[in-house]
């Protein structure tokens, strides 16, 4: 006589055994028919939706799950950490006081700051150069958390970073203050040192889009759609 647990075990084993196929199932025809039903259902549904979209109907029902990437962009998550930017004071100089907290906390050691003197005695210091090597950056966001001045943020909503070389992956201080101004195929001005007056002469920075919206195009991509207007 087997114990109750043994009986349960046998039952579980039987339940997990592959069911023996019936004669009709072994002809393979019902499975083929079900498969063809499924795929042709998708075909006709999507064909109908594509045609309906052409005449402006059912626009809110997508006919495909794919996103036409350079033309369409995906919504980013609200808490997504994207490329860095440096915040500015009202006079155009960086808010950064070159305290080296971010450079110290950075686990990838990808931040390089050269400190300089600020003419305003209340500010004391300003970075002459501020460079981030995105080739090394791990997007941990520690620099943002360490900053006592809220001078560095990771909210540009830019996450498509391409370059022809490792040096091209660097963000110089100009690019950090005005994200998206440098085209990806021009080399960054690595370790360029700017004076306070030069900071004030930089163009004003537009606010990045609010999180959750599709990201803006880079300088090079904007306006050069390769897709025919189908």
């Amino acid at each position, binding site marked *: 006589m087997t114990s109750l647990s043994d009986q349960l075990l046998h039952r579980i084993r039987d339940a997990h055994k592959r069911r023996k196929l019936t004669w009709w199932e072994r002809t393979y025809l019902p499975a083929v028919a079900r498969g*063809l039903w499924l795929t042709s259902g*998708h*075909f006709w549904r*999507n*064909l109908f939706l594509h045609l309906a979209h052409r005449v402006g109907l059912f626009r809110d029902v997508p006919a*495909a799950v794919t996103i036409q990437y350079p033309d369409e962009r995906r919504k980013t998550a609200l808490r997504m950490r994207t490329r860095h930017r440096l915040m500015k004071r009202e006079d155009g100089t960086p808010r950064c006081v070159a305290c080296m907290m971010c450079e110290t906390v950075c686990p990838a050691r990808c931040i390089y700051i050269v400190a300089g003197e600020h003419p305003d005695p209340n500010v004391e210091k300003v970075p002459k150069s501020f460079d981030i090597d995105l080739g090394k950056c791990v997007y941990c966001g520690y620099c943002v958390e360490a900053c006592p001045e809220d001078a560095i943020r990771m909210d540009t909503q830019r996450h498509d970073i391409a370059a022809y070389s490792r040096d091209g992956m660097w963000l110089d201080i100009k690019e950090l203050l005005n994200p998206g101004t440098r085209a990806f195929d021009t080399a960054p001005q690595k370790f360029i040192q700017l004076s306070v007056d030069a900071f004030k002469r930089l163009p004003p920075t537009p606010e990045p889009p609010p999180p959750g919206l599709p990201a803006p195009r880079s300088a090079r991509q904007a306006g050069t759609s390769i*897709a*025919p207007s*189908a």
Partner: protein
Amino acid sequence: MWLDLGIKLGVSALVLGGVLNFAGMQTWLERKQSALMQDRIGANRAYFTLPWGWAAPINWLLRKLGGIGILNALADVLKLLTKEDFIPAQGDRFLHTLAPFLSVFFAVLAFAAIPIGPDVQLFGRTIPLQVANINAGLLAVLALGSLGVYGVILAGLVSGNNLATLGGLRAASQVIAYEIALGVSLVGTIICFGSLDLPTIVARQGVLLWGWLPRWGVFLQPLGCIVFVTAGLAHTKRVPFDLPEAEPEIIGYFTEYSGMKFGLFFLTDFVEVVLVSALTATVFFGGWQVPYLTPAGFQFPWGSSIPVSPLAYVGFGLLSFTAKVVAFIWFFMLIRWTLPRFRYDQLMHLGWKILFPLSLANIAVTGIVAVMTR
């Protein structure tokens, strides 16, 4: 005499143009249909424009065509024509070049016997819309279709590549396993229609069964139709029967082919899909017949009738045949993108142990019924 030759050439041009265009457009159909089945968008980028100002309407059309991916077929051909034509050092130069031509030649030649429409009466002359009126047309199509595999076997054997040889051998065994079922499944239809002549088979499908059902092969021979379509699918060497090319296992018989020679093998596959579609439509789905349409006009089972002019009758016939062929191409493409590839032993099991006995049983049952109802 010269006029007869001209008419024949015209009909051949019509058939050949239709077949090659259908085969070429299948690259587009394959991309777009698979995309729609898989919730994708598919090819929509390749296009070109002309630089001149007067070409603006043409450019508009080219953009639209590029937007639905048709111009990708053109880009494919350009790519294939400009690629290096590589012949391996260990291969046979002459046979290596011959194989793709042999392959596509027989596939295209088989269309000669297929009637694409009813006879045209023009200027007191009867023009059959069939290239060659062979009185055993069905046998000719099957024979030419089977010969097509020589190109594949040849390609596998002369490439001097083990994987290609494997592909060629697989093609040979697959063709033997399926060509028999393909031929035998048609015997029942031959019993039903009492002829090997394709125009006669089509003409005998033009009458009605019990006064309302078209006397099509598929209603007389449902089992024969299923076996024929399955075996025909195997004949086209496409998924789920693409053992000879099976890219993930062996690269296939065209491993050592590049450029347009590879393109010809690709074209052969598509031409064979058109061939099997046309043959299925001809033998089992009434060929160019439209249900309830007689040369006098539409005559519906409920008594009403619409007269149709002779030329419109030809037009309806051509349209009907084209629609049937397109529907079958679509159906084969649907199967190709739905079912996974058979394993080699499953393929042999299906061919020899299921399809072949089924088609034999079909002959026996058809014979008995034919004798009883005579």
